[in-house]
């Protein structure tokens, strides 16, 4: 009896120790390096860290630079297009697959498969597909529609939407998989009850099923959000930030300043602003959730 308790104590101690180690590493890496980067962003660092304080110099320069404004405009278009688009496409696919169709496993695998590729591969393949000279435009013209045009990739105004298309192709299947799992976890009786009450399928899904799996929907949105904000490789492979600077995202700006221009201070400032932009979305969301929880508790 005593020995069993001792073993349990030892195990518990060990698990705490390991948890503490992991936590310490995480704190060191995430908080420590975030703090260090923030500090560097206020210094005159160029090729190597240099701790001469220069205040908001880099921030002012970045905010006044065109590439920075273009990058954030792009992030807004890309972020909204990607998150809403991937979630909506994923939901549609999930609902369609949920109809007890034949070859469900095969279809599910096909839809999920792009997620197994890296963004670099996606970018390269779509660069070919979307290139007017060798891709879809050329193919459709070859079929006889001589005036068909699909040149988003090389149009400065539309190229960012071409990036969204490639990203949607990559991530929609992932959203589908999570949402489908959610739909399947619901009690089948709900379907029957709704059917008996005469709800149309569309109404049934939008009014009953989706609200029932809302926590999963939120998780999907949050995961897509962080994918959107950290996207770098897709643009690099698909458009190289172009035509011109038309599809540059904030991550590309960070890399450019850090490594190509050799301006560590300005690069860090760009990175910190990226973090702030993430917080701008996450903090209101967290507050909103807290508020909701409190309201719920009051109701209970």
């Amino acid at each position, binding site marked *: 009896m005593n020995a069993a308790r001792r073993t349990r104590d030892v195990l518990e101690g060990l698990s705490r120790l390991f948890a503490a180690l992991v936590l310490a590493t995480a704190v060191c890496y995430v908080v420590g390096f975030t703090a260090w980067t923030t500090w560097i962003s206020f210094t005159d660092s*160029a*090729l*190597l860290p240099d701790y001469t304080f220069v205040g908001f110099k880099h921030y002012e*320069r970045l905010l*006044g*630079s*065109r*590439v920075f404004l273009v990058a954030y405009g792009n992030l807004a278009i890309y972020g909204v297009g990607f998150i809403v688009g991937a979630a909506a496409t994923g939901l549609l696919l999930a609902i369609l697959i949920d109809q007890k169709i034949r070859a469900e496993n095969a279809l599910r695998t096909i839809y999920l498969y792009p997620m197994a590729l890296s963004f670099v591969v996606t970018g390269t393949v779509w*660069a070919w597909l979307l*290139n*007017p*000279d060798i891709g879809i435009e050329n193919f459709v013209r070859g079929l006889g529609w001589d005036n068909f045009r699909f*040149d988003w*990739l*090389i149009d*400065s105004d539309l190229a960012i939407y071409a990036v969204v298309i490639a990203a949607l192709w990559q991530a929609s299947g992932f959203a589908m998989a999570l949402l489908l799992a959610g739909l399947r976890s619901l009690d089948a009786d709900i379907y029957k009850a709704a059917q008996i009450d005469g709800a149309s399928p569309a109404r049934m899904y939008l009014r009953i099923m989706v609200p029932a799996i809302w926590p999963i929907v939120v998780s999907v949105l949050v995961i897509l959000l962080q994918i959107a904000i950290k996207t770098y490789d897709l643009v690099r492979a*698909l*458009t*190289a*930030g*172009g*035509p*011109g*600077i*038309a599809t540059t995202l904030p991550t590309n700006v960070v890399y*450019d*300043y850090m*490594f*190509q*221009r*050799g*301006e560590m201070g*300005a690069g860090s400032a760009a990175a910190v602003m990226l973090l702030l932009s993430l917080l701008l979305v996450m903090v209101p969301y967290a507050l909103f959730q807290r508020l909701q929880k409190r309201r719920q508790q009051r109701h209970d």
Partner: protein
Amino acid sequence: MTRHHRRALLLACSLGLAHTSLHAEPRLTVISQWSAGAEGAAMDAFGNLVKKEGVTWQHSPVSGFTTDMMNKLRADIIAGHLPAAAQLKGPDIKAWSAIAPTVNMNDVVAASDFPQNVSPDLAKLHKPQGNWIALPLHIYRVNTLYASKKALDRIGATALPRTWDEFNSMAGKMAEAGITPVAHGGIAWGDTMYFELVLAGISPNAYQRAIMQLDDQALRGPEVLAGLRQLRQLTQWMNPSNAGQHWSVFLPALMRGEYGFLMMGGWASGVLKRGKFQEGKDFLCGPTPNDSQRPAFDMNADSLVFWDTRNPDLLAGQKIAAKVVMGKEFARTFTQINGSVPVRTDVDLADAGYQDCQRDAARNLKEAIAANQVLMSLGHNMAQPSGVTGELRDVLTEFVHNKRITAEQAQQRLVKAADAVR
């Protein structure tokens, strides 16, 4: 192991140590981005020349972009583990030599006839504080024009255009004949380079002031505006579908006569040579149009910086390697393999290992030095530190790919960009 053995081993070790401290064993550790192809082969040949002088050659290529190699160098500097020599170029030599100690090579250089036989503008970049700490390895002429022989035949032309007016009239004829006149890819540095070639061709002097000295008045001047207008004209003759692609993708189509002209540094000759295309038969090669009536040379050069490792073996290796690099044998061997032009202007290029285009570039360099019109390339990080280049590059690449931006607007943006980094 018996005690006896151990003692013998210890003795052997201490003898070995004594030996090295008495006589340095020359050794050279080098990092560069040249790992494969003609570039890798040129480095191997360099290694063989150094080895012949009794130096142990340890080359660690970091393939990929120059920035990848720089990241390795940065890591080496932070770790206090410097290589004896590293490939760097232009203003980067000054920037990097400020963060790590270098070796003063003045005595080795002074003992040679090297300084008298190189471009003073190039030499300057290798002594940022007045002392020689680096040496140039080779030069490429950036202002090189390649024309498709098939495309020229179709418009009945036999020679390259010499001025921008001639170029425009030939390109116009090509466009009428259904040929895309300009075979340009569309990556940011390439867009920057096209502006640089146009401005250098309109007025080398304006290029020196506006781009190399970042002079505000010159940037606001009529030559820069004329350059941007000519660049806008060139963009009308490019294939917009090429945006974001590397220039070399379009070489086969250029040789087939689907494109007319390509402006690219001399390294394109090497690529064409490897593709079994012949100068004179498949393409013509010469300087890009120049309205100044005096020869100009837009330069891209790679160099070797010598780091102070506080190691006598490496120091001995550095001095020998420096001597080798400054010699004519190295100049010939290295440039014949990678298709560049010797740094020394007194090297004879009659050898069959050279292409006509290289000979033309070498002659061009000599004449430009005499005319005081040697220019440093903006697109290839020779004119300005990379931070300044990046700022101008963003303006130029956007201008090339967005035809709604007027030349006047682009000029204002260039002025503003220069203000931000000056």
